[in-house]
């Protein structure tokens, strides 16, 4: 996916303020070989635009309603270069951890944007390490457990509050989340997701299962040494010895 002089750089602008978007459009209009493929006023539009219009570069605001810039990045699951554009400088370190191309502080001169775009072109022209959802999720500020889990389904974003999350099951290279009778897929390892969930409410009961303790009905002895948990909706999940120990400790 090289972008050279013949192919314009496909850029999407994401900012909840109309004036800020207009300013970026004005700056970009003065630069050669740039095509603005989408203008998004919030994170949901951004996820849809990336899925449907495949931009190569995102100019991404961080402070936005409902979904912030990092959450958008977590949901994208495509190799897209990102330049953060924001009035807040406190996210710079996290931006570095998710391999952002650049971090622009509003207000900035047009030359600064041109410089950032050059960096983006250089990055896209070479083999590089993409920011996987895994990486973004891991770069979250520590200490605060997730209050909600974000899942992308095609162009749509589902926001699952943790109270409504019943169960997380590991499958191949993704996890399956069960909530409200539905199942969702998320490109993340069980270990990294479990690390972000509140340990007082979610327990890793098995190599492949993390369960919400409020959904536990009862625990039965299955065979001589193995136990299973029966959830409030009737489904059964195996418990490993370590998992059972963890449950006992908590309850």
């Amino acid at each position: 996916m090289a972008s050279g002089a013949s192919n314009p750089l496909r850029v999407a602008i994401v900012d909840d303020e109309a004036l800020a978007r207009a300013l970026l459009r004005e700056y970009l209009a003065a630069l050669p070989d740039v095509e603005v493929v989408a203008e998004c006023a919030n994170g949901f539009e951004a996820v849809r635009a990336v899925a449907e219009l495949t931009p190569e570069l995102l100019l991404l605001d961080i402070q936005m309603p409902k979904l912030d810039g990092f959450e958008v990045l977590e949901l994208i699951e495509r190799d897209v270069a990102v330049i953060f554009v924001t009035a807040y400088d406190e996210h710079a370190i996290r931006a570095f951890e998710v391999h952002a191309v650049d971090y622009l502080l509003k207000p900035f001169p047009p030359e600064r944007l041109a410089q950032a775009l050059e960096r983006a072109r250089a990055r896209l022209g070479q083999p590089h390490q993409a920011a996987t959802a895994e990486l973004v999720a891991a770069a979250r500020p520590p200490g605060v457990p997730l209050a909600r889990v974000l899942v992308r389904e095609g162009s749509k974003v589902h926001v699952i509050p943790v109270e409504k999350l019943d169960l997380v099951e590991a499958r191949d290279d993704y996890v399956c989340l069960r909530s409200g009778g539905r199942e969702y897929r998320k490109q993340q390892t069980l270990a990294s997701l479990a690390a972000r969930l509140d340990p007082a409410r979610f327990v890793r009961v098995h190599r492949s299962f993390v369960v919400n303790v409020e959904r536990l009905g009862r625990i039965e002895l299955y065979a001589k040494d193995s136990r299973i948990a029966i959830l409030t909706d009737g489904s059964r999940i195996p418990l490993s010895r370590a998992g059972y120990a963890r449950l006992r400790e908590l309850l």
Partner: protein
Amino acid sequence: MHPILAYRGRLGAYLVAWVPLAAWLATALHQSAGYEWLEASVLALPLAVLYAFICLAAWYPCRAASPRLVPLARIVATQAVAAGLSAMLWLFLADTWAVFLEQVPRFATMGARFPTAVPVLLAGGVILYALAAAIHYLLMALEETRRAQTQALELEVLAREAELRALRAQIDPHFLFNSLNSISALIGGEPRAAREMCIKLADFLRESLRVGTAPSIPLAQEVALAERYLAIEQARFGARLRTEWAIAPDVQACPVPPLLLQPLVENAVLHGIAASVGGGCVRVAARRSGEMVRIEVENPADADAPPPSEPGLGLANVRSRLAATFGPAAALEVRQSAGVFHVALAFPAATGRGN
């Protein structure tokens, strides 16, 4: 709190100070009443100790006839009466003691010779009482000074804190940078609007810096400041921000602490408009309700969204400033219902306390 009894060290020093006084009393008895040294001492020392404790009660008349509250004539009269009473009590106790001493053969004649000691004891009683009263007054004055100093320091600390908070509120960096960015955006396509916004921003900052130092400002001025703020935010949010004002004419002149409304309106924009995809309406109302002024700020609230991480910071500041200015008569209420977040302030209309 008794200035001597409350401090063990002082009580010790006080009692030690009575030792020379006891010696002086014994000397006086020996010289003027004709008692032998031994007799004088045996009479004087216990009496001195007794009187030392009786004189501690000087605190009560001293407190009642305090130099700050009571004219000098009354002080003199009160203390004279107190001195007379203490001396006579002491005399009575001295007589009892002398009679008791007669039991001891060595002092058998002390009771009969007691009348010669009466003038000494009376005079001594009054003088010693006066001394005690003077010491109590001195200690009370020292206490008063110390308390005044502490209070002054505390007030200064509080004032500094409030100033700091006010400054921080005025120079909210994110508001500043986003506004500057908006101006930058307008320059290309709408230079006139850019200039207007520049001026609005400068006016707002200047005004908020100025009012921050005043103890109170009329409500109309506070509302004007909030209007300016919202006009600047209007450019940032466009159609996402709608504002409604309902300020009753009879509350325009009411004095309020400066920057009382400002944090509420900022919160409303931050949590109600910036956090919402579609935006909504921020409503500000002020009206008279009997003796009180009621101010209400409303903004849309997302019932699903997690509550803001610092729910009380700006509100806590407003609450404490309301309390500091109006005392328990002021109230701040917060509630959320039917998708609307509601903050209501109430405070007395006429004057602030201690302005």
